[in-house]
């Protein structure tokens, strides 16, 4: 949104776009201090000339990800294909549920028993970069020919921390609107609503086939709905420099009030506990729900007749929360040049084959891949078209943890009716700001 349009052409953009000799020199000179030069291997030997093909001895890469759901088989298949084409590299996978992933991974890397290469969410990159768990990948991005124009500015920028890139985006995955097509047909609803007025009108119609058609969750994905609405109303979650929480603004109150009103006006029952909005949708207790596109394969497996569309524009501009799975290389791989190069070869290959990943219900991050038939014929194609309106959490260390302890609880309290949106947001933003200040001191921003 506003940031992306008014963001000046900074040094990092220049580097990314240019790729000229001058840019490369700038990169080596200012790639974020010690850690950056370590990562690029520019310390003593010039090994930043990554060629894209691995030519060293046989090597085993430890690869961690959290694809425990319907996305798991697709990742396994891609890894198997990679190993077939690169017989010298053995990828030994470890799949850990995301909820535990971010606790275990840093500990394992610190102990030297973690991943050499792995996948993490974009909103965790800055945190792990600040902790020096993962390495900058600017040289890899350059040799892959990755540039901002192959992504959206939002997804591109969210992977940069302190002027260095830490993740290579595999996909983006956003919130989407699902509806039960049987119930919609019965109620005479045919088109997916694209704005707030149409959405409310269709909910009113849907009441004829389902008493409470749109359940408002109090927990996941409630805060993701709030983020989307906040951005739609023109608000902002956090200050770009990580100094302050900004969501207690009028726009924040407007967004949260809309969610509360869904309950107050009877479109949703009260006290929708975790997961029950989604389980209820699968069991035809409600007709419309907003959830992540990662549910596509799960919904297909239940044989529920469902439609999918971008979430409607409730505020005054289109915006939707999104996250992205990113490849990273851990500091553990840094000690071994062969592992480092093998890891880069792996990421290079996976990025180029990310069209296969569309089968997992995700949207490949690269534009060139998004235009392939694998994506344009997929269920999530209508969502992929809206990639320009997808917003990500800003790259501030510790931000995902702070959100969990503050904004998620405020949204829950307001939707439960325990506090007014204004009070809930004000108290929560104050606490988040205090934690952000503490983090800033800790991470030396």
């Amino acid at each position: 949104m506003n940031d992306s349009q008014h963001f000046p052409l900074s040094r990092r953009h220049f580097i990314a776009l240019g790729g000229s000799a001058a840019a490369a020199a700038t990169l080596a000179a200012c790639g974020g201090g010690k850690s950056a030069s370590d990562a690029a291997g520019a310390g003593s030997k010039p090994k930043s000339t990554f060629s894209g093909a691995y030519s060293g001895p046989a090597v085993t890469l430890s690869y961690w990800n959290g694809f425990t759901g319907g996305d798991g088989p697709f990742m396994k298949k891609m890894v198997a294909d990679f190993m077939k084409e690169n017989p010298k590299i053995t990828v030994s996978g470890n799949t850990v549920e995301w909820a535990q992933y971010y606790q275990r991974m840093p500990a394992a890397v610190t102990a030297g028993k973690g991943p050499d290469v792995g996948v993490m969410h974009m909103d965790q990159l800055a945190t792990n970069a600040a902790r020096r768990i993962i390495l900058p990948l600017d040289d890899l991005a350059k040799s892959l020919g990755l540039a901002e124009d192959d992504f959206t500015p939002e997804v591109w920028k969210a992977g940069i921390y302190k002027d260095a890139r830490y993740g290579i985006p595999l996909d983006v995955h956003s919130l989407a609107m699902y509806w039960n097509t049987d119930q919609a047909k019965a109620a005479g609803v045919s088109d997916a609503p694209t704005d707030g007025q149409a959405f409310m009108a269709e909910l009113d119609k849907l009441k004829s086939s389902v008493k409470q058609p749109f359940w408002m969750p109090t927990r996941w994905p409630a805060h993701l709905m709030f983020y989307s609405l906040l951005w739609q109303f023109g608000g902002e979650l956090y200050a770009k420099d990580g100094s302050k929480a900004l969501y207690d603004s009028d726009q924040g109150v407007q967004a949260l009030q809309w969610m509360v009103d869904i309950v107050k006006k009877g479109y949703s029952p009260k006290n929708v506990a975790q997961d029950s909005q989604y389980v209820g949708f699968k069991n035809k207790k409600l007709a419309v729900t907003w959830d992540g596109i990662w549910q596509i394969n799960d919904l297909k497996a239940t044989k529920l007749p469902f439609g999918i569309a971008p979430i409607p524009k409730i505020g005054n501009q289109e915006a939707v929360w999104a996250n992205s799975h990113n490849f990273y290389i851990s500091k553990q791989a840094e000690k071994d040049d062969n592992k480092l190069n093998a890891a880069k070869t792996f990421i290079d290959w996976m990025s180029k084959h990310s069209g296969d990943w569309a089968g997992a219900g995700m949207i490949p991050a690269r534009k060139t891949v998004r235009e392939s038939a694998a994506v344009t014929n997929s269920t999530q194609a209508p969502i992929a078209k809206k990639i320009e309106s997808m917003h990500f959490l800003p790259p501030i260390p510790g931000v995902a943890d702070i959100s969990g302890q503050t904004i998620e609880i405020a949204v829950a309290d307001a939707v439960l009716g325990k506090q007014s949106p204004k009070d809930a947001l004000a108290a929560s933003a104050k606490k988040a700001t205090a934690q952000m200040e503490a983090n800033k001191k800790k991470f030396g921003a």
Partner: protein
Amino acid sequence: MADNVLVEQRPQVTEPNGGTGKRVRSPGAPPPGVPWLFMAPYLLLFGGFVLLPIVYGLWISLHDYDYTLPGHPWVGLANYTALFSSDSTVFSDFWNSMKATGIFTLGSVPLLLVVPLAVALVMNQRFKGRNVFRALFFAPYVLGVAVVAVLWRFLLDANIGLVNQVAGAVGLPDKTAWLTSTPSAWVALIGVTVWWTLGFNAVIYLAGLQEIPEELYEAARVDGASAWQRFRHVTLPGLKPVVSFVTMITIISSANVFGQPYLMTRGAPGTETRTAIYYFTDQGLRNYQMGNAAAMSYVLTLVLILASLLVTWAFRERRG
């Protein structure tokens, strides 16, 4: 060892004036060092996995400790003072979590002392199908906390759960928000915990009941004691050491409650059911505020030590 001590002390006690005061080693005592040798395997484990972590934890609690960062600045007692100064970021969350643990402990301990005793008394009777009955009550304990909590989370869901459906069908309120409002959430958490763990306490009680000599009951019956009098004057005194033990472990395990609120309520509503260990885990393992979390753990430990002393005092042998 125990015998040894008695032998050493006895002369001093019984002959306060005539004793030489010199320590006498009994003729059968092993050479010095042998007891230590026997204890060595356990002491090694105890030292490595209990004593050392306790000391290390104390050291961590005096630092701003994030193990993934290179520097761990010394902060002295700041992590502790923050817990007691109302303007710190952790004050309200910490005491809120201690309160949650307190409510849970006060609610669950009495039930976990009384209900399993009743079950054990029934189990101790001779009747047909007794083994099935015993197995049924013990069965939930075999399940892990994750299974129990996820199972009940769906059963207790306000909108799609079976419990409210059944309650509605028999004319009871069917809109109870078991997981998202207090006090219902406490009823749910305590109820599930009692259902889950009562079998364990019942088995310990049962073992205690079987230790009480049958002769005592016979004697009581001969003297014309009623069932209640037999329970009050034979069973309860006989069970006293067992009750003391069960009280202690139940208080400690209740104070350590984590899995049930973590999986069932996520601390909802707000952070009202976020218990102490839940919050410490969030602080230490999710936010990497390990110094902070360690200091909190020591405060909780102190409270538990005081509670244990109180229990020991309450169950002390009264003489005279």
